[in-house]
C-alpha cells in the first residue's frame, strides 16, 4: 500500500493532472498534519514538574523496565497539532449537519461554562453525601424535567449513552417479568429500527424477531398483533420512527402488547420532534431512553460522551438500577446497594460504576432551564417545520417514499429512485461535502432503497435551509441525469474518497515505528 509515512507531500510543482502543488503539501489554510508519533519524541514534554525526590522502593518489584513509546510534544507543538487536526473536521459550528436520527443541533456555550463550575466538575463520586448536595439536587432536577416532559413516573439516570439506556430498559423489563415468574424469550423489533435495538436485545439475552412495516412506513399493527403471545417480552418501537414519521397507532400498539403480557420499549432517539408536544407516558410506553446529546443539546464530541437516562412506567419503576438520587426530607441521598435493601429490593442492580454522566446532566440542565417549557415546545415545532420545509422543497426532484402520506416529523426521508443507474446515494452525499454541508444519513433506514434521511433540527435559519435546498436540488438533478463527475466527489475536502475496503482487509489500527527507528533504540 502506498502510504506516505511522513505525512508530507512530495515537492513536485505540478501533479499528473497538471494542478499546481506546493512543497509542503499544504494549501494555504488547508494544512497537512503528520501523526503525533512522527513529530513527537519520548524525550519531549509539555508539562513541567518541580523538583522532588523520587522514591521507587514500594512497587512490589514490578518497576517498568522497558520504554512505552509515548511521543511527547511541547505545549506550542501540541496546540498546533490539535488545532490543525481540528480544521480537518466538519462540525455543527461550521454549518448544517443534517444527519438524520442524530439531531445535530447547536450546542449552547453556556452549557460548557456551567459544566466547568468547580462544584460540578471538580467533585469526586465517592465524596461524603453531605458535601455533594448540590450535585445530587442537579441530578434530581434533570430527572424531574425528564419525567415531567415524558409523563412517566420514574427515571433511571445512570446509563451512559442511548444504547446503554436501551439495555437499562430491557433489563428492567426482564427483571419485572422474572419477578412474576414469567420467562419470555423474544423481543420484537421493527425492520426500520436502529441497529442498537436488536443488538441490545441480544446483549440482554433475548432472541430478536423483526416486525414488518406497512406501506405508509409505520408498524403494521395487525401483523404485530398476530405475532404477540406469551413468549414476547417486549416490543421496541422508535417513535417518531426512523422514517421520520409519528406512529399514529402507538397507543393501540401499547394496549395490544400489554394485553399480551409484554412491555413497550420506546427508542427515544427522536424525542426532539415531540418534546413538549406529546408525552410518551400518554402513549402507553413502559420505558424510553433519552439521548441527552440529541434532544438536550449536549455536544456529540466526535462520538460521545452521550448520556441515556431512561424514563420508566410505574410497572417498571421498582426494578430501576442502582444507584439513584432520592429526596428525603430536605436532603438528597444516593440510594446504593446498602440502602436499597430496605425499600428498593427489586432493583436489577448496578449497571455502571458511580452514578452516571454528571457532566452531561449539567449541560442538559442548562439547556432545559434556558428553553423552559415554552421554549422546548417551540424546539419540537421548529424542528418539525424545518424538516417539512425541506421535504416539500425537494419532493419534486427526489422520491419521498412516504411523502404522500402526509407531513413528516423532524426528518425528511428520500430514496435514490430515479438516479442514473451507476449513481447512488453516496455520490450525492459526497457532492454535498463539496458544497460545504455535512451529508445526511445514508442507507438508513434499511427499508428504503438508497435512503437519505435529512434532519435539519430547529437551530437552522431559513436562509441556511434555502441554501442547503438549492445545493441538494442541483446535485439531485445531476444524479438523475447521470453526471459522472459526482463519482469523483468530494474534490475540495481534506481527503478524496477513502479506501474503506483496504482498511478492513489489512487493518492498521495503531502506528508502528519505522524499522530503522526501532533498531536504534
Amino acid at each position, binding site marked *: 500500500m502506498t502510504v*506516505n509515512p511522513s*505525512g508530507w*507531500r512530495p515537492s513536485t510543482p505540478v501533479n499528473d493532472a497538471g494542478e499546481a502543488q506546493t512543497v509542503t503539501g499544504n494549501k494555504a489554510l488547508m494544512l497537512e498534519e503528520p501523526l503525533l508519533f512522527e513529530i513527537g519524541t519520548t524525550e519531549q*514534554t*509539555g508539562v513541567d*514538574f518541580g523538583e522532588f525526590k523520587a*522514591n521507587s522502593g*514500594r512497587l512490589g518489584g514490578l518497576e517498568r523496565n522497558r520504554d512505552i513509546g509515548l511521543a*511527547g*510534544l511541547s505545549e506550542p507543538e501540541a496546540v498546533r497539532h490539535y488545532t490543525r487536526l481540528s480544521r480537518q*473536521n466538519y*462540525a455543527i*459550528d*461550521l454549518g448544517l449537519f443534517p444527519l438524520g436520527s442524530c439531531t*445535530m443541533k447547536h450546542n449552547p456555550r453556556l452549557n460548557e461554562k*456551567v459544566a466547568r*463550575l468547580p*462544584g460540578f*466538575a*471538580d467533585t469526586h463520586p465517592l465524596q461524603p453525601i453531605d458535601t455533594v*448536595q448540590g*450535585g445530587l439536587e*442537579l441530578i434530581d432536577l434533570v430527572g424531574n424535567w425528564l419525567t415531567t*416532559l415524558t409523563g412517566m413516573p420514574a427515571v433511571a439516570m445512570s446509563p451512559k449513552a442511548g*444504547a446503554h439506556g436501551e439495555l437499562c430498559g430491557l*433489563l428492567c423489563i426482564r427483571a419485572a417479568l422474572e419477578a412474576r415468574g414469567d420467562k419470555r424469550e423474544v423481543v420484537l423489533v421493527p425492520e426500520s429500527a436502529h441497529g442498537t435495538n436488536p443488538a441490545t436485545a*441480544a446483549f440482554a439475552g433475548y432472541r430478536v424477531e423483526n416486525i414488518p412495516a406497512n406501506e405508509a412506513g409505520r408498524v403494521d399493527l395487525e401483523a404485530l398483533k398476530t405475532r404477540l403471545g406469551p413468549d414476547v417480552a417486549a416490543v421496541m418501537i422508535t417513535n417518531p420512527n426512523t422514517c421520520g414519521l*409519528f406512529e399514529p397507532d402507538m397507543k393501540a400498539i401499547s394496549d395490544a402488547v400489554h394485553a399480551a403480557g409484554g412491555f413497550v420499549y420506546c427508542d427515544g432517539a427522536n424525542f426532539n420532534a415531540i418534546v*413538549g408536544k406529546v408525552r410518551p407516558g400518554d402513549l402507553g410506553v413502559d420505558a424510553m431512553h433519552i439521548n441527552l446529546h440529541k434532544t438536550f*443539546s449536549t*455536544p*456529540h464530541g466526535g462520538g*460521545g460522551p452521550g448520556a441515556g437516562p431512561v424514563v420508566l412506567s410505574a410497572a417498571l419503576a421498582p426494578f430501576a438500577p442502582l444507584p439513584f438520587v432520592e429526596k428525603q426530607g430536605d436532603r438528597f441521598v444516593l440510594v446504593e446497594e446498602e440502602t436499597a435493601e430496605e425499600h428498593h429490593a427489586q432493583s436489577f442492580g448496578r449497571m*455502571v*460504576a*458511580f*452514578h452516571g454522566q*454528571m457532566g452531561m446532566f449539567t449541560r442538559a440542565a*442548562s439547556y432545559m*432551564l*434556558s428553553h423552559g417549557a*415554552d421554549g422546548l415546545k417551540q424546539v419540537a415545532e*421548529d424542528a418539525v417545520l424545518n424538516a*417539512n420545509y425541506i421535504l*416539500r*422543497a425537494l419532493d419534486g426532484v427526489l422520491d419521498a417514499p412516504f411523502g404522500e402520506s402526509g407531513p413528516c416529523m423532524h426528518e425528511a426521508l428520500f430514496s435514490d429512485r430515479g438516479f442514473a443507474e451507476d449513481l447512488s446515494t453516496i455520490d450525492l452525499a459526497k457532492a454535498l*461535502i463539496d458544497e460545504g454541508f455535512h451529508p445526511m444519513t445514508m442507507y438508513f433506514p434499511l427499508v428504503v432503497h438508497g435512503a437519505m434521511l435529512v434532519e435539519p433540527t430547529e437551530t437552522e435559519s*431559513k436562509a441556511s435551509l434555502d441554501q442547503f435546498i438549492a445545493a441538494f436540488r442541483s446535485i439531485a438533478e445531476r444524479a438523475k441525469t447521470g453526471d459522472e463527475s459526482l463519482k469523483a466527489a*468530494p474534490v475540495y*475536502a481534506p481527503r*478524496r474518497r*477513502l479506501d*474503506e475496503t483496504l*482498511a*478492513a482487509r489489512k*487493518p*492498521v*489500527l*495503531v*502506528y508502528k515505528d519505522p524499522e530503522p527507528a526501532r533498531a536504534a533504540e
Partner: protein
Amino acid sequence: MRYLPLSDADRSEMLQAVGAATIDDLFRDVPPELLLREPIAELPPHASELCVERQLTALARQNLAAGEVPFFLGCGAYKHHIPASVDHIIQRGEFLTAYTPYQPEIAQGTLQVLFEFQTQVARLLGCEVANASMYDGSTACWEAIVMARRITRRAKAILSSGLHPHYVSVANTMAKFTGDVLETSLPELNSVTDGESLIAAIDGETSAVVVQYPDILGRITDLGPIAEAAHANGALLIAVVTEPVALGLIRSPGEMGADIVVGEGQSIGVGLQFGGPYVGLFATREKYVRQMPGRLAGETVDAEGKRGFVLTLSTREQHIRREKATSNICTNSGLCALAFSVHMSLLGEKGLRKLAQLNHARACEAADRLSAVPGVRLVNESFFNEFTIELPVEARPVVRHLADKGILGGVSLGRLYPGADALQNGLVVAVTETVTDEDIGALEAGLKELCQ
C-alpha cells in the same frame, strides 16, 4: 428564544410553503386528545443566560469542590492536574460539535486523533491493539468478560477480590441476565493479594480471570504467574487498570501476559466530574481484534494515494450486524478520548514517568506519616499512589468527621463494602501530585484526633 433562529415571519412563510395552516397540522398523526396545546405548566418558562447561570452556580456552590480542600479520594477516580491547553483544545468547536466520523473525508481530525489515541492506549497497556474507547472502566470490564466468553466458548469467569466493587457489581448484574457464572470474593485487609487462590481456582471451565492492577486497596501484584496459569488451562487473563498514571512506573499488564487489558482513562485529561463522563480503555492481542467491541479507527489511503483514516471493521458492530454484533455500544466517549490523548501527548513518555514518580513519592511520604499515627496500620507492602490504612475505629464516621473539618480524607471501605464487618476500619487514601505537605499534615492531624 436565543437558540432558535426562525422568526415568526419565517414560520408563517414556511407553513404556507408546506401547505399547513397551523403548526399543529404538521402533528396531525398525533391523536388530537394527546397533543399538548400549551407549554407544560409544571415546568418554568424560558430564562436568560444570566438567570440560568445564576441558578446553576448556586447549586454548584452547595458542593465541596476537591480543589478547595486537602483531598485524598481515589478508588477508580483520581484528581490530577490537567494542563490548561487540554480544555482549550477539547472546546474547539470542530472537535466538540462534530459527530461520530461517518464521513471520513471531512472527519480526518477526529479519525487521526482516534488512531493516535488507540496507539497511545495500546502502548501504555502493553497490547498490540486498542479501540477508540468505551463508556468507562466498569462497562469495559464487563465487555471484556463477554469477549472472553466468545473467544473461549466458556462462561465462567473468576473475579479477583481486588477488583473495584462497582465493577464486580456491574458484572454481577449483567451475569444475572446472560447466564455467565462469576466467582467473586471480598478482599482482606492484608498485604498479600489473592494471586495464589486465583491460580488455584482456574480450571478447564474458566473463561477468564479478571485482576485489577493496582487493585482496589492499592496493592500491586505480579500478573505473570496468573497469566501462565490461565493460559495453561485455556483461559484468558483480563487485567483492569483504574489508575493509568501508574503505568508510567510499573510494568504494563500486556507485557506480563494479559490477553485483554481494560481501564478507566479518567486520570489522564478527564476531570473528576462527579463520576462521569469518563473514558473506558480497551486493548487486546491483534488476533482477537475481530472479537473486540467498540469503534476502531484504521489507516488507509484516499483516491489520490494520500494517507487517511476511517472507521473500520464495522462488521463487528451493531449498525451492520444488528443482533449478531459483538456489543450494542454505539456512541462511546470520543471527546474524553481526545482529552486523554492531548494530555498524554503533552506528558509524553518523559512527562508520564515523572508524573508517576511524583505521585509515588508523595504517596510514600503520606503512607509513612499516616501509618505513624498511633493505632493506624499500613495494610500495603506495595502501592503506587494509593494505599489502604486500617484505623483503630470504623472508618466511615471518620471520613464524615474529616469532611466536617474541611478534609476529604479518602474512601472508607464501609462505603464500598457495606456490611462487610472485617473491612469497616479500612480507609483507602490516594495521594497524587495535587497533594501538598500541608494537606498530608492536615489529614495526619485529623486522624490523630479522630482515632484516639
